[in-house]
């Protein structure tokens, strides 16, 4: 009797241990799955940017060896961050010498191809300066490109708004060379300082 109850308690302990162990395993797996579903590939490989643009077909490979593109993602409905990003690029360009300025290609990629025609982008980017280029692509092209650059964007339905939908998007600026290497990612700011420093670092490297 005593023996039986002992073996039973051993059994219960074992079972309890097994239960805890499997819960930990399952929990860890679930956590990892959630992480990989939410978080994205952290590696930003950059790579080619080939899109239709306000200058015809745009490709990074058209840049000179000594040039750098300042790339942002946005859409023309965006009343705050996107114009500010362009204004910051414009201000940064003004703080460079003329020779330096010619080495910088400001590029805005619209992630709202449904509404942002090249005509609209032309009007929009020209406002900030002759050198500003607007580009966009098909949804598939943009998804593939932004994935490589670690850029997040998603369409969010806004049924009660006259906008119909808004687009969440990364606000960072990317310095990219003709090979598609991300030289530096500059976090969104209403001051051009970070961008100016990044550009100067590139020139001095």
């Amino acid at each position, binding site marked *: 009797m005593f023996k039986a109850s002992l073996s039973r308690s051993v059994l219960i302990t074992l079972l309890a241990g097994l239960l805890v162990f499997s819960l930990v395993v399952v929990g860890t797996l679930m956590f990892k799955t959630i992480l990989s579903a939410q978080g994205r590939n952290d590696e930003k490989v950059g790579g080619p940017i080939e899109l239709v643009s306000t200058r015809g077909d745009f490709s990074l490979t058209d840049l000179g060896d000594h040039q750098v593109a300042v790339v942002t993602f946005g859409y023309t409905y965006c009343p705050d961050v996107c114009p500010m990003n362009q204004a910051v690029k414009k201000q940064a360009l003004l703080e460079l010498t003329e020779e330096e300025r010619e080495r910088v290609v400001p590029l805005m990629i619209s992630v709202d191809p449904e509404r942002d025609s090249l005509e609209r982008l032309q009007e929009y980017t020209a406002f900030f300066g002759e050198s500003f280029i607007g580009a966009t692509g098909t949804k598939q092209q943009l998804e593939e490109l932004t994935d490589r650059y670690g850029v997040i964007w998603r369409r*969010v339905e806004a049924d009660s708004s006259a906008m119909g939908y808004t687009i969440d*998007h990364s606000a960072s600026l990317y310095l990219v060379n003709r090979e598609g290497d991300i030289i530096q990612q500059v976090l969104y700011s209403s001051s051009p300082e970070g961008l100016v420093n990044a550009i100067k670092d590139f020139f001095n490297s």
Partner: protein
Amino acid sequence: MLNIRSTFLAISAIVFSSFVNADSLTVENPFVREVPPGSPATAAFMQLYNQSDAPVRLIKAQNSITDYTELHDHVVINEVMQMRQVDAIEVPARGEVQLAPGGLHLMLIGLDQPVKEGDTLTFNLIFDNGDVLEFEAPVRPVMPMHHSSSSE
């Protein structure tokens, strides 16, 4: 003489009470953001003050140039900019609320032509206590913060 003056006072009292009637609600530093041609929308920013002892909610807005004036908020999560429509903007009792770049704003949707520096728009803000705030707001260009290439 006295009569004229008191008449003037009476009239101005009426004008004031009907205009910035919201004795308890005031607006400061309102402005509309100049946006590039091609932009279908722009934003208006301001500070709203509530001198009364009860919170008041801004529930509706109108402006003189676009059909739609919506209440929107901006949040940044991990460098991702997210704009959302909100139902109301609360001005706390004896407090204020900031409508500022990067946060709450009025979204003016349906621009037929670009708004430019020098333009002035008229706004009507309607609150849940029945108050209406009417005011004008100038258009201001997007100005990056000044950056002086300091000691390097």
